[in-house]
């Protein structure tokens, strides 16, 4: 007879998810003296075994392209830190008719922080009050000034490089020195100066000086593979270890949370989860709960936690769980630069890697009226990084032929292409949300998400501007712009499908009014006082800054507030 295994212990806090939000909460809460159990859906991480830095493509039989070459050209090649994928066997998601959305998940301790881009940008004061400025979306129930001390704490602890630039829409942080620019970046900087686009040193969660026992970066440009020296930030290498060192963290891996159980008093009291190794059901009890499973998974967990008290899903009296789904507005363009053909051999790797640059273009048109609202920043890439499969497809298609001339053409073009990715602010709309699919369950028996996605007018106009900016920069640098985009159709101006930027947010939004928000400004559920959601689900807007630094700051702040409330006996 199958028994549900219930742990007798009642922990102070149960954290669901071990990524940025979960890791920050674990560190702050355990160091604050409370007992924490953390459920992570994926397996444990062993950096020595699981991270693949310094391997050459020819060290692997498939050269990085995976079995059958199926990962050729994919984001997640064989080298990437585990276990990220758009499609996970046994864990499907559904798209509503007419909607395109891709959902990237990494089932392992540390989650997507093991391979993320390390771009560490603060939201600005104007980002928190976007609606007050232009009437669209909503204001956050808090200000930049309230979050700034937490940005300070996070940057001081994890280490971020950058320079103080005094740009109002991109606040300065506490920075270690950045590495020198690469030749591709110097070329772009000169062009940006010509066309009046800001271009400054990047701000990256990579340390260039030793910090808290972690050695400085050694500039191999392989951050996406992980980092055996813990010189870049991941929750697994920087937040979980100090939490474990307190002796107060119990980390349960291969634990797929299924439902948060609510008691008759309307407080959360337990999490039922599936042990992925046995497919057995278990339960863990706690006094408070921090849901940090990532935006869409957190919404999914709440929606699947139905009870007579919460027929629409836990903490969902507003009906907003799953709504206001956002991702960064994205578009990409590239150009060819003949002057780069003649570069002498040089080490181009640096920190980060391809599209994880030493410079970036922060939003610069914040002081004027544009054709669209809000803004975007640009991250460049290109140059002589380690060759990968698919690298010379364009040359092969363009030059054709075979033999010596083909061989030489590939070499001549190597490193002469520069690409730019722009990431901007999406305004939430009522046609973009996730909900529970009525019929499909995953292999654990948990109902899956169905995604609805619609890009709005503002997103399309922004993408058009992105393309114009790319072309202007490339041409000012003496290159040939080589990206063709349509002006209509499914991807106008190269507009990314939803989910492609992997910056989902908004589905468990915070606010002052319980009728149009799920959480208060401390990420605490209005309906359930001992429930907190501290990942990007809590975001009210999706500013033109990558979310991770703000997730860390918000989760740190929410955790300190949880500790205060616990001490006062409110929970």
């Amino acid at each position: 007879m199958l028994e549900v295994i219930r742990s007798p212990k009642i922990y102070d806090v149960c954290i669901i998810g071990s990524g940025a939000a979960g890791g920050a909460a674990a560190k702050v809460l355990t160091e604050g003296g409370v007992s924490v159990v953390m459920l992570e859906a994926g397996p444990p991480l062993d950096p020595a075994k699981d991270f693949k830095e310094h391997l050459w493509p020819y060290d692997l039989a498939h050269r990085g392209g995976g079995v059958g070459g199926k990962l050729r050209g994919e984001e997640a090649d064989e080298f990437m830190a585990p276990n990220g994928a758009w499609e996970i066997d046994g864990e499907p998601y559904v798209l509503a008719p007419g909607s395109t959305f891709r959902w990237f998940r990494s089932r392992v301790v540390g989650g997507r922080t093991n391979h993320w881009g390390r771009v560490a940008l603060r939201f600005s004061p104007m980002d928190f009050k976007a609606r007050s400025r232009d009437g669209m979306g909503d204001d956050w129930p808090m200000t930049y000034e309230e979050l700034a001390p937490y940005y300070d704490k996070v940057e001081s602890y994890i280490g971020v490089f950058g320079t103080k630039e005094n740009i109002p829409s991109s606040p300065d942080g506490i920075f270690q020195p950045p590495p020198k620019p690469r030749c591709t970046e110097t070329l772009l900087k000169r062009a940006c100066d010509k066309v009046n686009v800001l271009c400054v040193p990047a701000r990256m969660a990579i340390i260039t000086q030793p910090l808290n026992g972690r050695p400085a970066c050694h500039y191999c440009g392989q951050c996406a593979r992980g980092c055996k020296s813990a010189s870049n930030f991941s929750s697994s290498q920087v937040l979980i270890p100090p939490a474990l060192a307190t002796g107060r963290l119990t980390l349960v891996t291969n634990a797929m949370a299924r439902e948060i159980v609510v008691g008759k008093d309307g407080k959360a009291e337990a999490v039922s989860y599936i042990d992925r190794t046995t497919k057995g059901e278990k339960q863990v009890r706690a006094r408070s709960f921090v849901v940090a499973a990532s935006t869409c998974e957190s919404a999914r967990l709440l929606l699947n936690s139905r009870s007579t008290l919460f027929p629409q899903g836990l903490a969902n009296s507003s009906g907003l769980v799953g709504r206001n789904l956002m991702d960064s507005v994205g578009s990409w363009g590239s150009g060819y630069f003949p002057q780069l053909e003649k570069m002498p051999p040089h080490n181009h790797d640096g920190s980060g890697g391809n599209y994880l640059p030493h410079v970036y273009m922060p939003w610069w048109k914040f002081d004027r009226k544009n054709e669209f609202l809000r803004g975007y920043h640009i991250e460049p890439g290109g140059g002589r990084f380690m060759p990968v499969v698919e690298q010379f497809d364009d040359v092969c298609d363009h030059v054709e032929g075979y033999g010596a001339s083909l061989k030489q053409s590939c070499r001549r073009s190597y490193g002469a292409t520069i690409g730019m990715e722009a990431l901007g602010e999406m305004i939430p709309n009522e046609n973009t949300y996730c909900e529970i699919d009525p019929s499909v369950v995953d292999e654990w028996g948990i109902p899956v998400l169905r995604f609805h996605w619609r890009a709005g007018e503002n997103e399309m106009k922004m993408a058009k501007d992105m393309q114009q900016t790319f072309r202007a920069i490339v041409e000012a640098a003496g290159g040939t712009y080589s990206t063709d985009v349509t002006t209509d159709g499914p991807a106008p101006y190269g507009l990314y499908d939803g989910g492609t930027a992997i910056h989902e947010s908004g589905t468990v939004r915070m606010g002052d009014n319980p009728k149009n928000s799920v959480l208060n400004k401390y990420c605490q559920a209005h309906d359930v006082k001992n429930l907190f959601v501290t990942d990007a689900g809590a975001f009210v807007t999706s500013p033109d800054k990558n979310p991770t630094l703000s997730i860390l700051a918000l989760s740190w702040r929410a955790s300190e507030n949880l500790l205060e409330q616990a001490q006062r006996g409110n929970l």
Partner: protein
Amino acid sequence: MSISRRDLIKSLSLSAAAGSMLRVVPLTAAETARRMVRVHKAVSSSGEYVPKFFPEHQYKTLRALCQAIIPSDQESGGAIEAGAPEFLDLLSSENKDLQLQLGGGVMWLDATCTERNGQTYLQCAPGQRTEMLDLIAFRKNADKDPRLRPGIEFFSTLRKYTADGFFTSEIGIQYLGYIGNTYLKEFPGCPAIPEA
């Protein structure tokens, strides 16, 4: 001093810095582990390669085609020395689409050579082989002769995968002049960009 595999695994797992639970792998241990992976592979792959997917004749044809696409020259070896044919055979053994594209393509090539010259591609004289490749190596040739289209598609795919196999090999990476993947105390920046 040589390090045994056992010592290495021990040092990789006991890498916690004093007083913390950080999993920082000593850099020298990581580099040595990588080299041991490579040495191990080289030893077990000695001897003649037995194709996993292509029959013997088709595999010989594939080898010749790969070498024609990326030949040896004064500076470096070509596709064969880079292990490109083995790489393509491995992928094809795992990928049904490639089985059709490359496997079917090689068959098409032999059939077309037989039709035009009375013998398979490998049996053809060098001039006849060059003539055939010149036809299928350029898309525009399908305008004049639409029957070439399958061969053109085949060659386009073969060319890209052969480039993969060459430029991700040790000799290919050296040929490109990539000199990264190492350990630096500081990033030196790049040399100045030469005038266009």
